């Protein structure tokens, strides 16, 4: 198990910060020319052999080394120029790294505490045979890793045991667990209405993680609505970069597009009213923040993030950052676009074709799919098609909940997707192990659509009811669907939208709910651990307590 000081709780953070600050100060004094700390710093596309460091601030190089001390020694660290990209971000692409190793880095001469990341394990794919994908930043002329050529910069045999400043990492500890943190609709730090709520969820995760071994986070997944209410660059600063600063400089963030990433659509807000999240356009070019005083230069979400379009991190090339996939060890993650692409039939068909190609070539142990609009929810949004289409209150905003359910869940069944995460509804709802279920709530038939336990009831995923990838049918044909849009706020029932609030019949009853409903009106997040033999999902509240969990056991391949 790999330990990191970052996630061992606030005490650990404070201790490590103090220790690291001394070294950081030494470095800054003796190192490169001084400059302002980056206002935002985050990692993208961390693969077995590379990573992208993005920041906003002074121009400069990203220098990196396996040992912290080398960053301050001339000629000891490798450096890559940062290139100015969209949204006034600098981006440095690092290649030639070793899998599952920790690298320390500086940005434009600056080194904050905890500025290090761990490269991904090599993609673990079943089925043998050849296979061109799965490398990640390792292909092409710059793709040679230290595995292939241990040159004089290789630190494995370095005698300098100098990383004794709090950043201890067992570099050769090869644990197979992929440790993921998932937040949905977390962007309330920028809406002025829910002060401290998203930070509370984050701190709940810290507390949970510290109490459970402090494992380094491998993946940070965001389910959309990352920055309320319009997804402006300014809102992203408060709701993402300021809030998760310590995480983002150590762990790659991956996201999907929520409705609040699309500004006000074509509705000007005159600065008084906020109509964020109401766009039904399929075109990112129609993004508007509603401020007539400033021209819209594009969708901030797409300017901020650099997601793979050409299979850079192991997935099948999608040609667009709006939907993509990647591998991390034994986990394959797919991010679909339910906000834009899903609204146009031709674009949606292209996404389906790509998804089938991607999943049919996926040979990872575990497959995780994320997209914003949940296919089954009785939360603050209602996924029933009659509720969405009934006049005079048709809700075209939420129509992707139906189209994704009807057109994409059969693909998940077909290709062995294990878990699907969505947000949008600001509550927590987790389904049974479902298959062949494309209808509304009233159409749910446990005997047909859910995996049953020995008593003939829908299995809950716990105790003797743990799920197995290959189900009673003899096929890997079922998926757990979770709504986790509760990382920034927990919305109350609105009978006009959802008469049966948190009572979706395909969802598991929650013991932690005072009324025993099939969902939780509680703020929280999800920790997903995908190991060699099992996948465990836990819902963590703001106190760090586990309120729900389930396990899927890997079937022998």
């Amino acid at each position, binding site marked *: 198990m790999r330990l990191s000081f970052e996630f061992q709780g606030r005490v650990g953070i404070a201790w490590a910060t103090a220790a690291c600050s001394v070294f950081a100060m030494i470095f800054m004094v003796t190192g490169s020319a001084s400059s302002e700390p980056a206002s935002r710093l985050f990692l993208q596309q961390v693969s077995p052999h590379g990573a992208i460091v993005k920041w906003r601030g002074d121009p400069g190089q990203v220098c990196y080394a396996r040992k912290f001390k080398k960053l301050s020694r001339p000629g000891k660290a490798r450096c890559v120029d940062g290139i100015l990209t969209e949204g006034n971000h600098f981006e440095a692409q690092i290649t030639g790294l070793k899998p599952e190793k920790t690298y320390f880095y500086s940005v434009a001469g600056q080194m904050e505490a905890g500025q290090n990341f761990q490269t991904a394990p090599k993609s673990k794919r079943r089925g043998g045979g050849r*296979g061109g*994908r*799965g490398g990640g930043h390792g292909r092409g002329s710059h793709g040679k890793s230290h595995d292939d050529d241990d040159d004089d910069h290789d630190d494995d045999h370095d005698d300098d045991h100098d990383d004794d400043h709090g950043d201890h990492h067992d570099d050769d500890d090869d644990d197979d667990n992929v440790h993921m943190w998932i937040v949905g609709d977390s962007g309330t730090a920028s809406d002025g209405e829910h002060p401290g709520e998203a930070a509370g969820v984050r701190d709940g995760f810290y507390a949970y993680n510290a109490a459970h071994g402090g494992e380094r986070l491998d993946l940070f997944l965001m389910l959309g609505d990352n920055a309320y209410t319009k997804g402006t660059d300014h809102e992203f600063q408060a709701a993402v970069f300021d809030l998760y600063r310590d995480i983002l400089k150590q762990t790659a963030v991956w996201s999907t597009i929520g409705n609040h990433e699309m500004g006000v659509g074509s509705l000007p807000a005159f600065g008084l*009213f906020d109509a964020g999240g109401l766009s039904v356009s399929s075109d990112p070019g129609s993004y508007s923040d509603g401020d007539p005083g400033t021209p819209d230069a594009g969708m901030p979400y797409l300017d901020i993030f650099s997601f793979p379009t050409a299979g850079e991190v192991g997935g099948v090339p999608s040609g667009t950052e709006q939907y993509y996939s990647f591998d991390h060890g034994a986990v394959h993650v797919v991010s679909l676009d339910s906000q834009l692409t899903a609204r146009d039939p031709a674009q949606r068909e292209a996404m389906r*074709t790509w998804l089938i190609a991607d999943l049919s070539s996926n040979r990872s142990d575990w497959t995780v799919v994320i997209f914003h609009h949940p296919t089954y929810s009785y939360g603050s949004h209602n996924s029933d098609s009659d509720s969405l289409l009934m006049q005079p209150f048709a809700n075209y905003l939420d129509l992707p909940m139906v189209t994704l359910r009807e057109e994409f869940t059969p693909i998940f069944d077909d290709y062995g997707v294990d878990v699907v995460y969505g947000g949008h509804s600001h509550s927590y709802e987790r389904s049974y192990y479902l298959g062949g279920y494309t209808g509304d709530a009233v159409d749910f038939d446990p005997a047909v659509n859910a995996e049953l336990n020995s008593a003939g009831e829908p299995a809950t995923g716990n105790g003797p009811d743990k799920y197995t990838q290959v189900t009673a049918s003899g096929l890997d044909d079922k998926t757990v669907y979770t709504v986790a849009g509760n990382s920034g706020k927990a919305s109350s029932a609105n009978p006009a939208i959802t008469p049966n609030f948190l009572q979706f019949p395909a969802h598991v009853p929650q013991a932690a709910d005072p009324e025993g409903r099939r969902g939780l009106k509680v703020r929280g997040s999800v920790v997903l651990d995908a190991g060699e033999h099992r996948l465990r999902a836990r819902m963590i509240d703001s106190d760090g307590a586990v309120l729900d969990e389930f396990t899927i056991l890997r079937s022998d391949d």
Partner: protein
Amino acid sequence: MTPRRVGEGGGVLRRERRGLRVAGCVAWVVLVAWMLWASQAAAHPSLEEWISTLSARLEAAPLDAALYRERAVAYANEGQSARALADFETAAELGGVLGVALDRGMLLYKLGRYDEARRDLGLHLQRFPRDVAALEYRARAAREAGDGAAALVDFEALFAVETNPNPGHYLSAAQILEEMKGAGSGRALEMLDAGMQKVGPVPQLQRRAIALEVKSEHYQAAIVRLRTLENGLGGGPDWNIELAGLLILVDQEAEAGRHLAEASAQLEGLRLTPARKRSLAKLEALQARLGP
């Protein structure tokens, strides 16, 4: 309303005006205070709440074209098309049709009134010829109206200005070319290749191209295209099976056999999904065609 000229009326009228100004001022302060309160209260309004808010504002400012346009868009998003169109009409009367052309054009497209949609979107494009949303929706409207040539012109313009076009647009354009008399699959393939030039060799476009090649019985060309996906698709079992099927069609049975053997070995090491079960059946059928 007939505007009054300055200097009209006597002292009584001036006092009346002063009184009206004071009352107007108070009303304005109350309105602004209410709007500020509403902006806090309705930071995440539902569409219904948003429409109610706009309606209240329109009562205070019944000649505000922008408010009518806003409410029209909100109505449109809620599926209340008749009300949306009525508000668009009012907004156009008050502020000119250019102010509503894009949004009304998009609504008309969704309603299947393609000719009217094209007219509105065309007005908007006269003023903003590089507006990607208008180009996209006019292309779609032309496509649905059966005017493939016009749709293609707009798609081409869209591809010229859009840095990262969604691969789905190229699929749309290629589909139009497939259906156009005289164009045939050749131009559709050119369009798909142009798309892959821009976004890379992605399966969304290459799979369509392969289907077109197979439809034209250009099996060798289909094989060449399928091989371009080997790296992206990781040479997995489905890719091997598909390639083997094409190789059989061009009598390259030995190589086909090798790919089937590889697919078989791959599938053996993978847990069975419904899709892999189908792949196995397909593999066995191809193996049967090859014989022992």
